[in-house]
């Protein structure tokens, strides 16, 4: 079982987490074409490479966060707060 380092709780067994999926931006719901929206819903890029994913610490701090994981080696090189939170913190006065 791999270990995932939660940005808040530190390394924990992956069974404490829910793998949410590849991190994707949500298209503008009022402007998106059906193709764009369904790409957001259903299409996974599934690279044999580094991937940015969203995980949820279900049995811990209950935070969503971003994980950079290599899908071949399972190596995790970075975990960080969700992009929207980082943007908010960066943009705050």
């Amino acid at each position, binding site marked *: 079982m791999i270990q995932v380092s939660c940005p*808040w709780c530190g390394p*924990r067994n992956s*069974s*404490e987490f829910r793998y949410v999926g590849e991190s994707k931006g949500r298209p503008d719901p009022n402007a998106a074409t059906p193709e764009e929206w369904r790409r957001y819903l259903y299409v996974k890029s599934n690279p044999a490479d580094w991937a940015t994913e969203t995980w949820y610490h*279900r*049995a*811990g*701090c209950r*935070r969503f966060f971003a994980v950079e994981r290599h899908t071949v080696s399972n190596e995790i090189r970075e975990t960080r707060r969700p992009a929207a939170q980082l943007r908010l913190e960066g943009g705050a*006065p």
Partner: protein
Amino acid sequence: MAESTENTESTESTESTESTESTESTESTESTTSPIARSSIAPVPPVEIVEGWEVSRRTSDAALTLSDESPLGKVVVHAPERGVFATTVGGGDGVAFGRAQRRADGVLVIGSSPGEWLYLGPPGCAASVLGAALASAASGAAGGAGGASTAGGASSEHVSAVDITHGRALIRLTGSAAPRLMAKICAIDLDDRITPNGTALRTSVAKLVTDVVRDDTADGTRSYLLHCDRSSGQVLFDAVLDAGIEYHIDIAGFATI
């Protein structure tokens, strides 16, 4: 009778277009029996009513004991992770996420999650703890006159408190064999160097999401508070007992904090 569930609205919302609590009283006849609060964990005889709660008064001199502490008052406070409240919570320099600190009045303040604090105190304390937490938040947050929840204003922050006394089960495991027992049902490294006294963490215990708080006794004996959803309390209690057979675990009565 335990004053464990007061209307929290009085501290939080000052102006309501319509109050949920009507002031006029109907002509109802109140039940004659006074309410008894019951834990989700069946008490082991002898049973007594303490502060309105039905609790076990069993004593045990076993080296490893498990007791149901569900009647303790429990309040959860949410506030910004790095705000004013976070730096002053507990009336001091703040209780960091992952740590637990006992206040002078005996209330245990736990940094249970980022931006979330859990207060544990004697039965019936919830209302006063809750009020005090919100009052300290209000005084810390400029512009929060009369309420801790203040929208807008750069220096204000949103703080809320909920009495969860009834929503959670709380048990205490005490004895030097406690870490060995826990190793059967919990994947966290409980070595002194990794998780010293005062550590708080949320993890999976017997496959239940559980807050684990290391709160050693005054004489330095290992002790863990385990805090989970009320409806799973009995399951957690039984799982700990089962894992403890090897270490001759025994059930002890309610001890309070």
